[in-house]
């Protein structure tokens, strides 16, 4: 079980427990504002963009090629950007915080 926190653009903190699926699926299931996940997680829509805190990047890893190509078109993208559909939930994420990018 991992405890995951989302911080929305309105600075609302949403703390959720999860043990499977992707970070996007967790956010969508709990109506986290700013995470739509329109394409269901195939890296097409870019509507599940989050920022990872620099100290957490080793845990999460950098975006892959397709993900990077999609993020390239988001004005809010930076080196700490990830599409949350590409982040699988695991114990290793316990305690992590994601800032919703849009």
């Amino acid at each position: 079980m991992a405890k995951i926190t989302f911080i929305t653009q309105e600075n609302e903190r949403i703390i959720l427990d999860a043990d499977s699926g992707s970070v996007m699926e967790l956010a969508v299931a709990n109506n986290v504002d700013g995470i739509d996940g329109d394409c269901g997680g195939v890296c097409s829509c870019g509507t599940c963009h989050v920022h990872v805190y620099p100290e957490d990047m080793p845990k999460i890893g950098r975006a892959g090629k397709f993900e990077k190509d999609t993020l390239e078109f988001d004005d809010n993208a930076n080196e700490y950007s990830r599409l949350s559909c590409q982040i699988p939930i695991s114990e290793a994420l316990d305690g992590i915080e994601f800032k919703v990018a849009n």
Partner: protein
Amino acid sequence: MKKSELTDPFGDSRLKKGYGQIHDQNDPVMMILRHNDVRKSAHDYKHFSSETIPGRIVVPSEVNIRTTRQIPFELDPPLHGAYRTLIEPWFKRPLEPEYQNKLIAQIATNIEAILQEGTVEVIADFALPLQSRALTLLLNTPHTEAEKWISWGTHVFRSEGEALDGNKATMLYDYIDTEIDRAIEHPSDDMYSFLLDANFEGRKLNREEVKGVMVLTFAGGRDTVINAVTNTIAYLAEHPETLERFREEPEIIGKAVEEFIRYFSPLTQMGRIVTEDTKVCAHAAKADSRISLCWASANRDDQVFENPNDIVIDRKMNPHVGFGFSHHNCLGATHARQILKLLLKVLADKVGSMEILDYSENIEEWGEFKRKVGYNHIKVKCNRR
């Protein structure tokens, strides 16, 4: 070749040049064919604008059949975003369980009808009624309206087998005008009343703006949805193992929908106007000329998609542009995705097998490119599970 196959006519040109040239009513179009160029150009509204004479960004051009600007589709940021923010919540309603329950009930009724019939012509007997009835949910209008829309045929601006039809467009505009009058006189909880009551930059939307959103809603989700539904039925008729897989692994249905949208690419392309002399894939694009973003070609680009001409039903990485890309991605995509998802669920639940008996392909001709986009008619025998 399988009857349900949609070949890729753009492959050679995409590889060798990256673009194609087509004529359209004395306003030629340079079609952009590569995935990366299509996404870049779609994102670059400063060089490739949607905000021009109403109808000009559509290919074939609709400048001769309408003056109403489709909103927010024919606007650039930031104005585009202001309208989009206002109306987007309405178009996200398909995510609500109540909406989905009504939609699945409609689809189940339609499928039950074709199972009882046994053999049906998929477009007239299934896809068109399904699209029209589902549209009553999106508009939140009485379900009886669907019968009127069904009588209009598959395309709201074209007669069957003909080019653009001004009379048909006028019929749609007259209908929308009448509906706006009705909503002004008797406000309800339908989409017309929602728009008439919406606050936009400190004022109400005016009649022409409401009309612009409604025309977009009717036109954008008509033949596109019908082709997506029809192509899906044709594919499943030739791939019964896929229906079986949906029964065993219903969790892949979301990915299957995205893959069908990529492969079928119900909208071949959308145009933009070049705002100043520039280059697209090393080719000059002159100010005030037209380019088009060829979604159908980008979706078969082997630089991005492995085995692009195969349907990989659970494709995991699928950055397709079947719903467009960037600011102008399809406003009706949430509705369309729900239709297809629920269609696949109900088909898997009720249908054992289907067989294509007779068909005629709908081929679009774009200069040197001939692209199958669906069918003019397709007769299918459906067997209950």
